């Protein structure tokens, strides 16, 4: 029987993988992909809760807004990455080291 916990562990895995990508990847587009994994993991949570735990659609509505925000964020992020690439010929984060701690 598939229950709530199956989905929650799945999303925990997605979240962890997203974090892994965030911490280890050098390419900005790759980091963006990892962030999308994180957002999707939260969405899976929301929809699973909506189905099994809360009995209402609030989670699904929340998930729709998350998708909207993700789209806006990716658009702006890619615009910035593209500009970075034009200026520096590389999308790698480590090379963007002019600004130091």
């Amino acid at each position: 029987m598939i229950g709530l916990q199956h989905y929650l562990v799945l999303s925990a895995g997605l979240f962890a993988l997203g974090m892994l990508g965030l911490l280890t990847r050098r390419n900005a587009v790759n980091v963006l992909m990892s962030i999308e994994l994180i957002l999707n993991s939260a969405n899976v949570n929301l929809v699973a809760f909506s189905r099994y735990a809360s009995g209402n659609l609030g989670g699904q509505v929340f998930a729709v807004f998350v998708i909207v925000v993700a789209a806006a964020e990716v658009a702006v992020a890619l615009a910035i990455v593209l500009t970075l690439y034009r200026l520096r010929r590389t999308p790698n984060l480590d090379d963007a080291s002019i600004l130091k701690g």
Partner: protein
Amino acid sequence: MSELTRSLNAFRPELALLVGLLLVVLADTFAGRGRQLATRLITVLSLTAAFGFAIELQAAGTRAPLFSGMLVIDPLGAALKLILVAAGLVTVLAFSFRNSRELAGLGHGELHTLVLALVFSCLLLAAASDVVMLYLALEMVSITSYVMVGYLKGDRLSNEASLKYILFGAASTGSMLYGLSLLYGLAGTTSLRGIQEYLAGGIPDANRFAVYAVTLLVLAGFGFKIAAVPFHFWCPDVYQGAPTPVTALLSVLPKAAGLAIALRFFYGAFSVPQRGPWDLSGSIDWTSLLMLVSVLTMTLGNVAALTQTNMKRLLAYSSIAHAGFLLMGIVALSENGARGLLVYLAAYLVMNLGAFLVVTLVHLHEGSFDLRDYPGLYRRAPLLTLAMAFFLLSLVGIPPFVGFLAKLYVFSAVIEQGRGAYATIAALNAAVAAYYYFKVLKVMIIDPGNEAKPPLELAPVDQLRLAGLALANVVPLFFWDWIEGWARSALVLYAGR
């Protein structure tokens, strides 16, 4: 239908900003040569209107949920909105495309639209009473900030700062989102009021772990907005890379909105209905956690600022430190704490904006943000140096400046709650901060150098701006009673009831 009308009535500041936003977009498209003047005029007018509505809102003293519980209006919220709109208004008035070398030649319409959108989003964030609204508003503030920071698209520094900002920000808010999703699962509802009822109803031991996890994850999002440790890493780079007027705006608005929502979230969700908003359901000792964050933040900010020579980075670390002080208002967990937070935010507005204005003007005339180019300014620009002295002394927290008033409020609130050690650490921090503020002043006044350079000729309007902000740092002390009254009347926290 009537709930909607009632909500719209209390939504007037935001509506003024929305109308302004749309008009600016239209003006930018159709106004032709009068574009620059038109957009600026519309922005100032709409911010002023919003300010007026916010005053009206606070005077009315309504306490109600709006828009089916998405937002909440109460005197504390209205006071915070007032500060947020004031921050936007003062920034737009103090900075212009003419007194900032970095902004020269860039699009007017877009920047003004972004400013209005930022203030609008901050107002939504400060009043959010539902997890969906909270997340959306937080991301609206964030994304608008990301775009504003990337405004100098041709500049490598600015572009890299913008990239780091957006990646770090998306990661933090993504984590916060995961926490919010768990909270939804626990409470079964997206409304903060419902969450409050759930938490106050007693949490079974099996669920405590989940609530801890939620708190930490949510703090990631708030911490990022406030630039508190350990989510502050983006701050110096972003402040340095963004055009200075944008930095000035970002140093106040998102921070204030972040603090407002942190206040509302933790008091709104974690307070017990029967006992009033200042008693917590005792599920988690998050005040100690916040206290730790506050101490780390102010210490790190102050220590890092000691060795900075770039003025923008110095002020960035100074802002981080002040976030630590501002958190004291929340940690104090009392009416006096909230009052302290309000006064500190208002004071912080005028101190910080003033300092950034001086830095912008020096850059305009000298082309440098480096402290090593600041010697001799006393002779070359006496008014500028005097104004900077006012701002820096206010930042240190010395009477008769508003900075002193602000620190007095938060310190007394914290001491009152018995957290003497905490107050002592904060006091030590203030002393450490004094070192670098005085250092800047010393460099400007006493250090030799630049003797051969001609005096700085400030435009009359810039002199007026400096004078205005400098006075704003001193005059309020004479109206202490009035401020006290205002802060006191703002202390009713609706907390979803």
